[in-house]
């Protein structure tokens, strides 16, 4: 070994020694000190995949909802919302499936919720059911007219709307949307044959509207209807002399 270095000038020999020392240190660092996963990128990727797969799930998927809420699930299955996942409206529910008593998913009731999909927006595809939230029954919560699990656009029987299209359209966006035409009008069969000779009835008394709007009105549909005191509110008139019944406008 000594002989080997004597062949070089002294400074070069020292340099070689230093270089060899660095080599040994370098190899030691690479082979011993650096842990294997740091050197092997395949291993890093396998770890990353495992970490990624282990991340917690927050949306449980619509099948898990059906396990407990089978009645709602069945209702929804045939309606217009059949393609919606429960969590589209109720938010992530994995926590609820694990601890049903303490973790509750949201039930969106605020009026701004449904318009996120159903407000008129010219960029939305044609034919998607859209309303103008400003004029479509303002102040009412959507669920007071539409069952969110089986929403139906309000319909007027074809027998009526065929001739009374304008009334049907007005009523469709009014507070009286849920009322059947026959709730207020008695419609004889004969009206369809000779519409001008046989006419449907119109409510003739204040008490008729009072069934829902009177102070002690008990009608189930009229829970949220504005209530008045029949004895004090415009005694002289029949209600529809002031309020157009197919689109009643009242101050709320």
């Amino acid at each position, binding site marked *: 070994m000594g002989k080997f270095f004597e062949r070089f000038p002294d400074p070069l020999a020292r340099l070689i020694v230093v270089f060899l020392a660095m080599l040994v240190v370098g190899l030691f660092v690479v082979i011993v000190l650096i842990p294997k996963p740091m050197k092997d990128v395949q291993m890093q990727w396998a770890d*990353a995949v495992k970490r990624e797969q282990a991340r917690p799930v927050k*949306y449980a998927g619509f099948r898990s909802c059906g396990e407990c809420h089978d009645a709602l699930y069945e209702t929804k299955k045939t309606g217009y919302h059949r*393609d*919606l996942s429960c*969590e*589209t409206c109720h938010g992530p529910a994995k926590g609820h499936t694990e601890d049903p008593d303490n973790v509750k998913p949201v039930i969106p009731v605020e009026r701004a919720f449904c318009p996120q999909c159903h407000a008129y927006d010219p960029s939305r595809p044609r034919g998607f059911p859209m309303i103008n939230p400003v004029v479509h029954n303002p102040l009412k919560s959507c669920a007071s007219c539409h069952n969110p699990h089986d929403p139906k656009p309000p319909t007027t029987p074809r027998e009526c709307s065929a001739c009374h299209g304008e009334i049907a359209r007005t009523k469709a966006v009014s507070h009286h949307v849920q009322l059947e035409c026959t709730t207020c009008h008695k419609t004889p069969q004969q009206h369809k044959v000779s519409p001008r000779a046989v006419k449907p009835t119109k409510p003739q008394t204040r008490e008729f509207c009072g069934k829902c709007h009177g102070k002690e009105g008990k009608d189930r549909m009229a829970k949220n209807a504005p209530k008045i005191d029949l004895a004090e509110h415009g005694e002289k008139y029949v209600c529809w002399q002031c309020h157009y019944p197919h689109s009643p406008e009242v101050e709320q």
Partner: protein
Amino acid sequence: MPLSPFAGGGTVNGRRTFLRGFFSVLLSGGAIGGILKILPSKADAGEAPPKGQNWYGFGVSVDKCIGCARCMEACKSENNVPREPFFFRTWVERYILRKNGTTTVKAIAPNVEPSPETASDKSILRSFFVPKLCNQCASPPCVQVCPVGATFQTKDGVVLVNENTCIGCRYCIQACPYGARYLHPGTRTADKCTFCYHRISHGLLPACVEVCPTQARVFGDLNAAASPMSRFLRMNKIHVLKPGLNTEPKVYYASLDGEVR
């Protein structure tokens, strides 16, 4: 005894590996192991998937999207994406084509009431929503540029970011032609859509597909002939974004307007 050019009977490969390992120590500072072993793997990217192996794809029906932003909401909840409005793994753009030939594109914001004023704007020819997300390219430029091998492609074709090795250099954010990546302000690492890898590996759908009310989003295995995804590809005329870049995106669009970039 096999002939060996090297004393001690070493093999070519053994010596090469040794030299490579040695120079990698000299040359690389932080990225010690990464560089050398990534190079060969890059050639694999984009290869046709073997039969029987999952190869995930994503479908978007542009004509079904109503721009409700449920998908963006769900993605943020599922994947801990920061709530600030400029971080998204998936987002929806509103395209407005005007009669004078100009097109405006703007990402919509979730939970903001849509703007009906465009209805009365007579200069508008056509307007629609286009959902976007990471295209999980089969030949992903983001993987090529990552200097430390933190962005990689899994066997099932999903491009993931290893947040333990990502150094937050933003190369991939620059390289992605679809603007699909962002730097997560919490972890300071690159983040992007993973096709909800933690969900799909347990047989669930990605969160955005789960909640999309109109089935504008479809997800599935491209190798399964009977999956909704394969049906989507059969039944529609399919486009991908920026096909000229040869990134081979695996997000497939149906009813895509020629204006969409």
